[in-house]
Every structure is written in structure tokens, then in C-alpha cells.
């Protein structure tokens, strides 16, 4: 998993979630891995064309003494800029099993118009 802890000073880490971005004919789809984040802990915001994903993880999964630690509990945060070719207002989101899927419809390319020239 590509996780870069952005805040290592504070006791609580914030991770940069792994994200897949692909486009289909009519939308741009973004899929993010946010394991440990419940629906209540997830916030998705759009302002101008900046998309922000933040997920809160409630820790408490280790019991007793640790023998192996390959992942640290931590919150997730990532901000992405959406291009103008998408309609941010039409965004839809689904979230299950720690995977967030955002779908942003692409704007239809402006159709060319033929302009009639009147000759005086």
C-alpha cells in the first residue's frame, strides 16, 4: 500500500490513501482505499474544483502486547483537483468495505455550431 505519513510529529498519523483514477465515456471515477473508516468517519467535500477526502479511523484494534505491526492506525486525507472537463456538482459516491468510489460526470464537449454569415 502506498502510504505516506504526512504528520509524524503528532501521536496520530494521517495517511495519504491509495487512489485509482480512471475515466469512462461519461464519467471520471475515483476509487480510494480507506480501510478502517466507517461511514460516520468519512467526509467528502468539493469546493471550486478541489475534492477533499478525509476519513477518521477509530483505533483500538490491538489487544495486549504487539508482536507484529505492519500498519499503524491513522486517519486518511487527500485532496485532488478535478479538471474543468468534469461537472463537480454531479458527483455521486458509494462507500463499502472501506472502499470509496466517486463518480463525476464529464461535461459534454460543447457542440460546434455553424454560424450563418449574413452578407449585407
Amino acid at each position: 500500500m502506498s502510504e505516506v505519513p504526512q504528520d509524524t510529529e503528532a501521536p496520530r498519523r494521517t495517511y495519504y490513501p491509495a487512489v485509482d483514477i480512471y475515466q469512462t465515456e461519461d464519467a471520471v471515477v475515483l476509487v480510494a482505499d480507506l480501510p478502517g473508516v466507517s461511514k460516520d468517519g468519512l467526509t467528502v467535500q468539493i469546493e471550486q474544483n478541489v475534492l477533499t477526502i478525509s476519513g477518521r479511523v477509530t483505533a483500538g484494534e490491538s489487544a495486549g502486547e504487539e508482536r507484529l505491526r505492519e500498519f499503524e492506525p491513522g486517519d486518511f486525507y487527500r485532496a485532488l483537483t478535478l479538471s474543468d472537463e468534469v461537472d463537480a456538482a454531479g458527483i455521486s459516491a458509494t462507500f463499502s468495505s472501506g472502499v470509496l468510489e466517486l463518480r463525476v460526470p464529464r461535461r459534454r464537449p460543447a457542440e460546434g455550431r455553424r454560424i450563418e454569415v449574413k452578407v449585407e
Partner: protein
Amino acid sequence: MALIPWRNRARGGLFDLQDRVNRMFDDLFRGFSPMPWAQERLDWAPALNISETDGAVRVTAELPGVDPQKVDISLTEDVLTIHGEKKAKHEEKERDYHRVERCYGSFTRTVRLPAVVDADKVEATFKDGVLTINMAKREEAKTRKVRVEVK
């Protein structure tokens, strides 16, 4: 009955490092695809955490997007194997990838637990993409306090 290895804290660090480097090499070679495209990796390995109390061992794994019904958990003495698959949701061909950071495909992790556990007393739950396996230790593996008599 397997003897529980005495783990010296200091030595443990170096062995952990060795283990990690080995695993890194494994991952490196496993990820080789005959047709590398779009940074796709053939398989991946989920991160695990293992902790133990006097009577139980707990293993947690980050498995976002994995169908819990299709995860195989098998246990032999003190060796736990978790196997499953993280499926990419849609058809590959119709899409134009801008970025691929997530790993998907099948995975298998085999770990040696710090104690032998009772295979009949295993409980696995899956919530928000995190798998938690709680296993009760076998009687003989439970930590016992030994009183030292000073004579």
C-alpha cells in the same frame, strides 16, 4: 507441542529486519509481470498486525474491497494463512487510467503466531475493510505466572 521461542527484544529487531528484507525481495519478484502495463501488479500482500494477551492472539489485516466471504483462513498449530482476492470492480478494457495506486489481485499471507492456538476457538470479523481474527490460545500455551521462590 512446539516450544514457544524465547524472543529477546533486541534480537527481535534484527530478525524483524531480516524478515522484512526477505519479504521485500519476495514482493519484488512476485510483482514481475511478463507484460507490464499501467503499473499493474499481479498480486499484493496486505499489511498485518499481530498482538497477544495472556490467553489469546489477535491478527488484524487491512483488506479494503475484499469480499469477506471469499477469504480463506486456515490454521495449523501456530501458523496462520490468510488467502483471498481483491477484485477490480469493473472491466479493464473500457477504461482510461489516469492513476493506479491501489493494489488488487489475489493475495496470500502466512504468518507464524506467537503461540499455538485452539483452532476451534477462532473468531473472525470483517468491518470497514479490516479483518480481525481472534484466536484463543491452547491451554498449554497460555501465559502462566511463575512464582520464584527465594530460598
